[in-house]
């Protein structure tokens, strides 16, 4: 039986849903599962790793792991993978995963595949599927090494109803040495209390069409009404109107919510490749020729300053 080690995706003291999605996928291919959690003060998270579907839990819990540092994190993953005897090591797609996964693969001398949307065994060989060239093509890739390190694209592995809990078997990992070559001095944390784009069932994104802060506030109001994650396009980040961590797109966050509402975004390919995995897309734009309409299930051609207030009103009335 194949053994799959899933790296717990922990943000603000919580295990993200993606961790359970990866564990469920591992179980669905008949694998024995383990999770590794890396950070500080993790004790309270162990039950969610068990209920998420892991059969053993490797815990690297140390004050020195409070701030992310790719080197020490990779050391913990390699340690857990060796103790568990992992055949596959899966990360949910985050910026930190992308920094750690290639290190782990290099240290273990095995293949590394990022942004994968599927993985399967054909005989003894592992094969993965992943998009490339800004989502324009899909690659089917044969893994030549016996083991694989993979970063899984957001929303690729859906939870199934049969997802079952695992069992508790906690193994403590020793704290890794700090990386003296790259010392993290400070974290300037993003504003807390916001809905994580990767977790949100609905994402509302705002583009250059809003023109200024007043326009942003208007669309943010729509996001708040819906309890939605609030995203943006590259142009808004470059102009300094929105923060980097809100960027949806090829280099920003890749999202796949149930509903994606795009407001005042024309739809550059860089942006589209970050959101076309969404289940349903609604676009609002005053230019009927905007490329965003080519991927939108529903398009409203109109002035967003007119449309958004009506949209908020309509949504409020159905919420009642």
């Amino acid at each position: 039986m194949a053994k799959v080690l899933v790296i717990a995706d922990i943000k603000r003291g919580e295990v993200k849903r993606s961790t359970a999605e990866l564990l469920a996928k591992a179980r669905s291919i008949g694998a024995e599962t383990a999770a590794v959690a890396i950070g500080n003060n993790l004790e309270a998270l162990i039950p969610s790793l068990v209920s998420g579907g892991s059969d053993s839990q490797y815990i690297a819990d140390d004050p020195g792991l409070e701030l992310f540092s790719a080197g020490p994190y990779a050391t913990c993953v390699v340690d857990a993978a060796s103790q568990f005897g992992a055949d596959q090591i899966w990360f949910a797609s985050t910026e930190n995963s992308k920094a750690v996964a290639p290190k782990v693969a290099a240290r273990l001398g095995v293949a590394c595949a990022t942004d994968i949307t599927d993985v399967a065994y054909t005989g003894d060989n592992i094969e993965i599927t992943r998009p490339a060239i800004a989502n324009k093509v899909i690659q089917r890739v044969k893994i030549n090494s016996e083991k694989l390190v993979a970063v899984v694209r957001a929303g690729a592995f859906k939870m199934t109803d049969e997802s079952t809990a695992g069992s508790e078997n906690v193994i403590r990992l020793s704290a890794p040495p700090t990386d003296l070559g790259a010392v993290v001095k400070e974290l300037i944390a993003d504003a807390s209390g916001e809905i994580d784009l990767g977790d949100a069932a609905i994402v509302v994104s705002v583009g250059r069409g809003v023109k200024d802060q007043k326009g942003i506030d208007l669309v943010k109001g729509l996001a708040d009404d819906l309890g939605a994650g609030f995203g943006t396009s590259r142009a808004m980040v470059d102009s300094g109107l929105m923060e980097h961590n809100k960027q949806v797109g090829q280099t920003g966050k890749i999202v796949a919510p149930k509903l994606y509402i795009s407001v005042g975004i024309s739809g550059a390919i860089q942006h589209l490749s970050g959101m076309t995995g969404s289940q349903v897309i609604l676009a609002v734009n005053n230019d009927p020729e905007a490329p965003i309409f080519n991927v939108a299930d529903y398009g409203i051609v109109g002035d967003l300053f007119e449309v958004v207030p009506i949209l908020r009103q309509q949504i409020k009335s159905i919420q009642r």
Partner: protein
Amino acid sequence: MKILTTVKKVVDVELTIRVESAAIVEEGLQYVMNAWDENAVEASVQLKENNGAETTLVSIGGDDDNTQIIRRGFAMGIDNGIQIDDPLLAGADSFVLARVLQKVYEKGSYDLVITGKQAQDTDNGQTGIILAENLEIPCVSNVVAIDVIDDELLKVTRLGDGGKEIVELKLPAVVTVSDSINEPRLPQMRGLMMAKKKKIEVMDLAALGTSFEEVGGSDNRSEILEFSRSQAREAGKKYEGDAAEITAQVVGLLVNEAKVL
């Protein structure tokens, strides 16, 4: 400070990509410098202008597109160019490319390697990180600012999942840059003219002092079996007209047809 900037030739992603018989159709494709590597070139040239760094650009691939990419680097202000031209490297994976770059690095005693965070064609984002791991030197990825403290230390800002991380980075080191780090300059006409005259150092693996076996060329850890076209989303329905009317109509559809509200 000596900087090695690694750049990759990629297919122009703005153009239509056709797939036939499980392969990408070459005809009609155009190649450009990977956009994130342009950010790496810009960051390198800024370190040259502001801190007197010496800059060398390396690109793996022997064709004319690669030569043009190196010349573009010259025109942006890069001092030296190296082109690794060896037909054996066609189809090399990230691990093999990282070994080749390691040889280039070791030949030149560099202090800093700068590269784009990922390539637009594969979106792998691995080569720079693996290079650092092989060299056993520190690496910071997704960097949005580089400040020089002294000859041996940089202060870099990384965009991580929790926010901006301020990292003290000891040289030698590898930095992979985000597209948010800068706005790459457009080469000026004068720069382009001068770039044509500049000499590019062209080397194959033997000239680099290595071999196909040594860089692990015969054991690619992964190989692409086939390409297929992405399931393109189909354009849905566009509503134009009275804002109140069409908005109400669309909200109704989101509730009753799409069932997402």
